[in-house]
């Protein structure tokens, strides 16, 4: 039965799209994690919902391009609002994120309900944006995802040293003359883009997990940033593809939760088994060191007794 699925050309194309999404998500997710903007990614994701709903209300169609433009608009608006509020009021970033996220998401849910209740809306299937449904994607949707993922990957490669410098030491970057604010906004923009294309497969509620989890898992395997990016991309790819495969096989199962659970499994595996940083390795080395010390002590004790 599984092989039949892979032979289905439509699913094959969706599978490739999911792999590309996971790949690009894994890469930009590393920078989001290192720049400590994971929570911001979550706020961005939740704020895409009203944009998706509004775009549908304006265009009357489920065409993905229009919905993505809507998503992009409201999420960028949310990003600006968050910066503005943090700078101009006493609210710290975490409180601002919580407030903006809740407002946008609530408005989005309200709009979705209105749409569902109208006669056209019943067929909209917009609730797939909450938890993702890769199987409902059409060929052109996948093309959009692949093209945007490709651009994301190229941009991150091009700006690799600039992003690395910015994430590690922004003050030094400023001193060298790099436009730190612009670079920061670029990373933010790439996060928004990754989130917007990701919501079709993983959904608004869980996309941040696909952004962050592969990056955190990858960190356990290496101390070098460029290798971390590669491993994170691979973990993202595996999560996206496997999640799509499983959820397409079971009807009515949304893709998002499956993708995220796979990503989490990879994370737990890394946490336990990674060489040097994994828990099991650390426990074994502690035991080795203890044995070594005990042997040494036994030797000392024996010498004392002899005298």
């Amino acid at each position, binding site marked *: 039965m599984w092989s039949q699925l892979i032979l289905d050309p439509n699913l094959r194309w969706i599978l490739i799209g999911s792999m590309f999404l996971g790949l690009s998500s894994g890469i930009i997710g590393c920078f989001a994690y*290192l720049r400590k903007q994971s929570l911001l990614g979550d706020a961005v994701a939740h704020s895409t919902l009203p944009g998706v709903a509004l775009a549908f209300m304006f265009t009357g169609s489920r065409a993905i391009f229009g919905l993505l433009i809507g998503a992009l608009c409201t999420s960028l608006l949310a990003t600006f609002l968050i910066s503005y509020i943090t700078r101009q009021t006493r609210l710290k970033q975490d409180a601002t994120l919580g407030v903006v996220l809740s407002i946008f998401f609530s408005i989005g849910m309200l709009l979705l309900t209105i749409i569902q209740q109208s006669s056209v809306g019943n067929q909209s299937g917009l609730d797939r944006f909450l938890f993702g449904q890769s199987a409902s994607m059409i060929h052109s949707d996948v093309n959009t995802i692949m093209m945007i993922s490709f651009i994301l990957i190229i941009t991150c490669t091009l700006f690799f*040293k600039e992003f690395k*410098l910015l*994430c590690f030491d922004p*003050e030094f970057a*400023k*001193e060298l003359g790099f436009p730190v604010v612009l670079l920061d906004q670029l990373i933010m923009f790439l996060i928004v883009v990754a989130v917007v294309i990701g919501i079709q497969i993983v959904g608004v509620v869980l996309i941040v997990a696909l952004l962050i989890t592969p990056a955190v898992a990858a960190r356990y395997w290496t*101390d070098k940033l460029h290798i971390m990016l590669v491993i994170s991309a691979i973990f993202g790819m595996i999560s996206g593809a496997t999640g799509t495969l499983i959820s397409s096989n079971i009807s009515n199962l949304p893709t998002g939760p499956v993708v995220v659970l796979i990503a989490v499994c990879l994370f737990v595996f890394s946490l336990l088994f990674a060489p040097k940083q994994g828990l099991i390795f650390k426990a074994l080395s502690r035991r080795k060191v203890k044995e070594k010390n005990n042997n040494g002590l036994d030797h000392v004790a024996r010498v004392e007794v002899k005298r």
Partner: protein
Amino acid sequence: MKNPLKVKNLSVAYEKQEVLKNVTFEIPEGKLIGIIGPNGAGKSTLIKSILGIVPSLTGEVEIYGKPYKEQRKLIGYVPQRESVDWDFPTDVLDVVTMGRYGHLGWFKFPRHQEKKIALDCLKQVGMENFSDRQISQLSGGQQQRVFLARALAQDAQLYFMDEPFAGVDAMTEKTIISLLKHLKDQGKTVLVVHHDLNTVKEYFDWIILLNEEIIMIGETEKVFTKEYLQKTYGGKLMVFDSN
């Protein structure tokens, strides 16, 4: 020959509180210059506002007679160790190579040439054997030396250092000061925010006494006196004359 640094009417405010008031001074070339003052005097802020890391309300900065922005390649910077997350996935050589990013410009990846320069700079601070060490495994003194090597890789004429001696062991302190003296011998100028009054006379040719504004600036023997120190520290300081 223009002086390496000229600052005019530099004022910086932080959240409506003025932290630097109308700072104006000029420093000569080829000297080790200490910036001395109590906590909160604005010493770090002075360096950061000169370098454009922190915005200023007013002020002009000239490096060798030209505006700061045109002369970045002549400047090296050693920030405070705490300004960075040392858990970042990178190794020692990589951090030092970052000092070459200014010369590389946009998009170009550092190649063999840049890594060679970085390794040379690591040798100068005695850390060449640590080049592939993950930075989270470094001690405080080693971290400081890595930052120093990175500034050396910038190949500058004028160096700014923010508390390079803070919390380092005696061995590292000796390494750093001998390196600074070596830079001075090469005709370079070094400005150092310094916290330890006991070593000022030994380390610095000139000092700047700062407490939100310049109290005094000039040669150490003339400026490092009980009178000026009391003025800078506002009577919070006990000065014992050694005979």
